[in-house]
């Protein structure tokens, strides 16, 4: 029981928890900054806790924590785990498992601080804050952490002094005030055998589950170890750790093998470190004559370049001493990548390979565009390259979107980038002349035949909502600034027919995006994507066949048709071939979207007045990356999704809700019914267990009526209090007699048979039912 005068102590507890809260927030962010969500959430949390602390009903006569408070604390502990799926749905971002658990502990600590009027809560809050600080010290190395640690030390010392002084005050008051000593409750200390047994059993169960349980469980349990950082195999939001994330790790994870940003990209035929090891421990490795690869530099070189040794290059890295020499000359590419590119970031994404500018009606094919004359690339700090924009950035772009495209198996020298690119980086490839433009908007490595597997391209690209574009944003024909471009060319043989269709579809819509949208919507809604559909070989114009006759075709016909239609409406348009990273292909296990060779796609693009190419999608089923939605819209979408899901599963949901309501409403009756049946099925090995089991059920029924037997009350006295001085119930009296005999008596008299005892117990349970005890009219009799 917390004595008076602990207000300062409780305030100090709040301060301790606040420091721990901030420290956890800081350590959760690699940059060591506080997020606005974390700050606002923390303010709300602490404000609520202080209100609860101020107005929570507390009685000095009730030294034990109320049951509702225990329930609330338990809910606080598991709340972050329960809310995480919803937060992931709304924000698209999530926390690793260990941070969710720490969040639960953090909220629990604030809850304990709010209930610090009870001494156990006060002490537990202090312990929780200390645990959080230890977690932060172990996990984080951000700059503010030492300062927070110092602040915690100061406040923690103050907290200890206050706790000590309050205890001393209480003791002194007890000694000086007559009668106070009588208030001291003497508690008999005992060894917590039950608690220890449960703890040991839980530990053994966890170990058994880890050793012999499913692999998924093992991995999940391993991820609960904060220092592991998670493997990322079960949780896409698991944090990076040793052997994980952008650092080096073995395995088929796209976030790992080969995608090493800390290594230098060199081109040589010399043996790498791995080859030297092969030479020592196995047959000599014979590298191919011409090899492009990522090899790790020497330690001295790495230290020179990075300042300190990166995690992946530390000497403590594991080396399997049981390693056997290779039986054959294993090639580095023996594990095939699952795709050509792995995309980390928001999808859908269009990655250009080839840009086509003019259409040849004779061969019904597009002709590649020309290579831009200028590089339009300038270097920034940190290996970043910025694209020089010919015009000042205009206001219709949303916030830049970041991606990381990891080259797995590209056969060309393409540098895969999203459209509307603004910045990009390949680490250590830090000069603009390392890059060139294959086409306008198609970046490539200069002077190389292919991009080495393992290159990670970090990009920033713009996004925009075309419906908000002003009419002037679409470039007009002839304003491209390059006379060589033939972006408005429509073959004469097709021009009349195409222009007629385009005008029909555009109608009287104003120039600009409404006309483009009308064309796209018509194609997307009235035409069918059919990859197997091909125009007859003798048809003079496949695009006309597609538009007029078949109304179905592959994506390149959609792109061609859209481009020619838009050109007929005097919009500078081109067609691009490239890779399409589909959102449906997102792999939550690796948090990447693999792009395979089968993801080749053709799409048209419209030139904007700032010389950026805007991707448009006439093909049904394909989308264009739009701006990231604001919180309100995402929340609304989440609500819509939730409603839709509920509607789809309305029958099952209704049944589940009704069942839950009925079970909750009738929970006491159901539980009692189950207990009685359990008692009937497994009454016990002896007549004593039969009688005592019956008595336990009967006592439990009365507990529901708040007439349970106090622990110090005897059975006979309890039953007598139930009768309340009324005439003695014969059945109950006989059950008491049996119960006393079962609990304290010697062997049963021979005049009584066990079957008779069981029958009598059943009769009592049938007579003294829950419903009978619930009836107020009979309360006078039973109470």
């Amino acid at each position: 029981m917390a004595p008076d005068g602990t207000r300062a102590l409780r305030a100090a507890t709040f301060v301790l928890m606040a420091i721990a809260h901030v420290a956890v927030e800081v350590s959760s962010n690699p940059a060591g900054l506080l997020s606005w969500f974390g700050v606002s959430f923390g303010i709300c949390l602490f404000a609520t806790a202080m209100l609860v602390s101020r107005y929570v009903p507390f009685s000095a006569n009730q030294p034990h924590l109320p049951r509702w408070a225990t329930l609330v604390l338990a809910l606080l502990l598991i709340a972050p785990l329960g809310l995480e799926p919803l937060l992931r749905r709304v924000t698209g971002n999530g926390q690793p498992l260990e941070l969710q658990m720490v969040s639960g502990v953090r909220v629990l600590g604030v809850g304990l601080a709010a209930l610090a009027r009870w001494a156990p809560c006060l002490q537990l809050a202090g312990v929780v804050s200390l645990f959080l600080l230890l977690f932060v010290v172990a996990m984080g190395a951000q700059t503010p952490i030492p300062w927070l640690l110092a602040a915690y030390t100061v406040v923690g010392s103050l907290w200890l002094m206050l706790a000590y002084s309050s205890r001393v005050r209480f003791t002194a008051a007890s000694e000086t005030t007559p009668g106070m000593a009588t208030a001291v409750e003497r508690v008999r200390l005992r060894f917590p055998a039950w608690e220890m047994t449960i703890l040991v059993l839980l530990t053994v169960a966890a170990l058994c589950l880890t050793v012999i349980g499913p692999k998924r469980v093992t991995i999940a349990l391993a991820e609960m170890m904060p220092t592991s950082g998670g493997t990322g195999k079960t949780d896409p939001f698991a944090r990076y750790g040793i052997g994980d994330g952008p650092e080096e790790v073995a395995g088929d994870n796209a976030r790992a093998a080969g995608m090493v940003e800390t290594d230098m990209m060199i081109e040589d035929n010399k043996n790498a470190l791995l080859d030297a090891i092969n030479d020592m421990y196995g047959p000599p490795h014979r590298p191919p004559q011409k090899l492009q690869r990522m090899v790790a530099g020497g330690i001295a070189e790495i230290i020179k370049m990075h300042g300190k040794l990166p995690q992946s290059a530390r000497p403590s890295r594991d080396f399997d001493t049981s390693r056997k020499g290779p039986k054959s000359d294993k090639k580095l590419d023996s594990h095939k990548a699952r795709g050509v590119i792995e995309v980390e970031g928001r999808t859908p994404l269009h990655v250009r390979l080839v840009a086509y500018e003019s259409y040849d009606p004779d061969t019904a094919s597009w002709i590649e565009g020309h290579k831009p004359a200028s590089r339009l690339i300038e270097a920034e700090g940190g290996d970043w390259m910025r694209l020089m924009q010919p015009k000042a950035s205009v206001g219709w772009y949303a916030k830049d979107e970041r991606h990381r495209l990891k080259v797995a198996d590209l056969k060309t020298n393409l540098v895969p980038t999203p459209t509307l690119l603004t910045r990009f980086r390949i680490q250590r490839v830090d000069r603009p002349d390392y890059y060139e433009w294959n086409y306008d908007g198609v970046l490539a490595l200069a002077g190389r035949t292919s991009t080495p597997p393992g290159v990670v391209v970090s990009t920033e690209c713009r996004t925009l909502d075309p419906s908000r574009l002003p009419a002037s944003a679409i470039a007009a024909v002839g304003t491209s600034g390059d006379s060589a471009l033939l972006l408005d060319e429509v073959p004469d043989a097709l021009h009349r027919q195409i222009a007629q269709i385009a005008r029909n579809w555009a109608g009287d819509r104003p120039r600009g995006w409404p006309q483009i949208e009308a064309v796209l919507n018509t194609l997307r809604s009235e035409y069918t994507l059919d990859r197997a559909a091909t125009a007859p070989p003798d048809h003079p114009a496949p695009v006309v066949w597609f538009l007029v006759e078949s109304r179905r075709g592959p994506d390149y016909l959609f792109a061609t048709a859209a481009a020619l239609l838009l050109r007929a409406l005097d919009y500078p348009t081109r067609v691009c071939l490239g890779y399409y990273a589909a959102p449906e292909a997102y792999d939550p296990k690796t948090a990447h979207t693999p792009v395979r060779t089968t993801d080749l796609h053709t799409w048209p693009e419209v030139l904007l007045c700032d010389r950026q190419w805007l991707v448009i999608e006439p093909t049904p089923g394909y989308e264009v990356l739009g701006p990231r939605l604001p919180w309100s819209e995402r929340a609304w979408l989440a609500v819509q999704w939730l409603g839709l899901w509920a509607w789809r599963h309305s029958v099952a949901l209704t049944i589940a809700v009704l069942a839950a309501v009925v079970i909750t409403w009738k929970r006491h009756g159901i539980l009692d019914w189950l207990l009685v049946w359990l008692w009937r099925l497994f009454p016990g090995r002896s007549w004593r267990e039969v009688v005592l089991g019956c008595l336990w059920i009967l006592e439990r029924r009365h507990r529901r009526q708040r007439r349970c037997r106090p622990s110090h009350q005897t059975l006979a006295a309890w039953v007598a209090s139930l009768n309340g001085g009324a005439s003695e119930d014969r059945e109950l009296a006989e059950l008491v007699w049996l119960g006393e005999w079962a609990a304290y008596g010697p062997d049963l008299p021979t005049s009584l048979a066990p079957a008779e005892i069981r029958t009598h117990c059943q009769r009592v349970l049938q007579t003294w039912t829950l419903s009978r005890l619930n009836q107020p009219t009979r309360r006078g009799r039973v109470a």
Partner: protein
Amino acid sequence: MTMTRTQPGKDARLVEARPIQQLRHVLNTALRGKPEVIEYVLACLLARGHILLEDKPGLGKTTLAKALAAAVGGRFARVQCTPDLLPGDITGFSVFNQKTREFEFQPGPVFADVLLADEINRTTPRTQSALLEAMAERQVTVDNVRHPLSETFFVLATQNPIEHHGTYPLPEAQLDRFAMKLSIGYPDRQSQRELLATAVGGGAFHPEVTATILHPGQLYQLQQQVAGIFVAPAVQDYLIDLGEQTRIHPRITLGLSPRGLLIWQRVAQAWAFLKGRPFVTPDDVQAVAEPILAVRLGVEAAPAAVICEILSAVAVPLYPK
């Protein structure tokens, strides 16, 4: 269907202990309106314990003792304890026989079956101590010679709680040898009316009061029967828990001794016997707790409340652990 037995909670063998019912009737006749006191006295008698009656003058302490002595059929002796009483006046003493030229032991009143030590706190502690051995071991040692007492030796001592001048409070060692301390209290109105009606004409004499109920040796048999009443280990654990609770209670300066624990169990057995039950329940333990603990616990004030706290602090065993 009703279970086939004579009466709920009663054992057939014990119910037929007719002398007990007669004894109860006689004592209730002698001391009207106090059946609960009679039950305690009977329990104490059957448990081979001794009773300290503490109450005001004229409430029937001596009457009860005389009726009890007459009913059990043994020798009755009465000692009026005064400050000049000597230990030898109780235990007896050796005198020199001129004829045989030897010392002969002259037994004192302690060699009776029922000894009434009236106003025991008026005699000196030296004389009070003469009863220590007799009460605990049922023997006296005089001149290094051990003299066994009756197997049914029973001390019924009285003391006046309101007079303190010229009295010597009983030491804890003496108190611990009593099984229980009882207060009779004033009778109710009806009992007083009956008492007055009886006294008219024929005086206070009532033939039933002086009747002998038990045959020689019958009390000892009953006491042996009581000692055989079954006590479950759970009940013994309950007794131990209660005893430990008396030792840690902040308002008790002297907790229950092992001898007190043994007496408690024996009296609980007697209580179960009186209820016709062949085993002891926690009800029996609780029923006799107050008179047993009141005599031996060092409680400064409100012993009943303290005993109630002790009983409330220990859980009653019902289900197996």
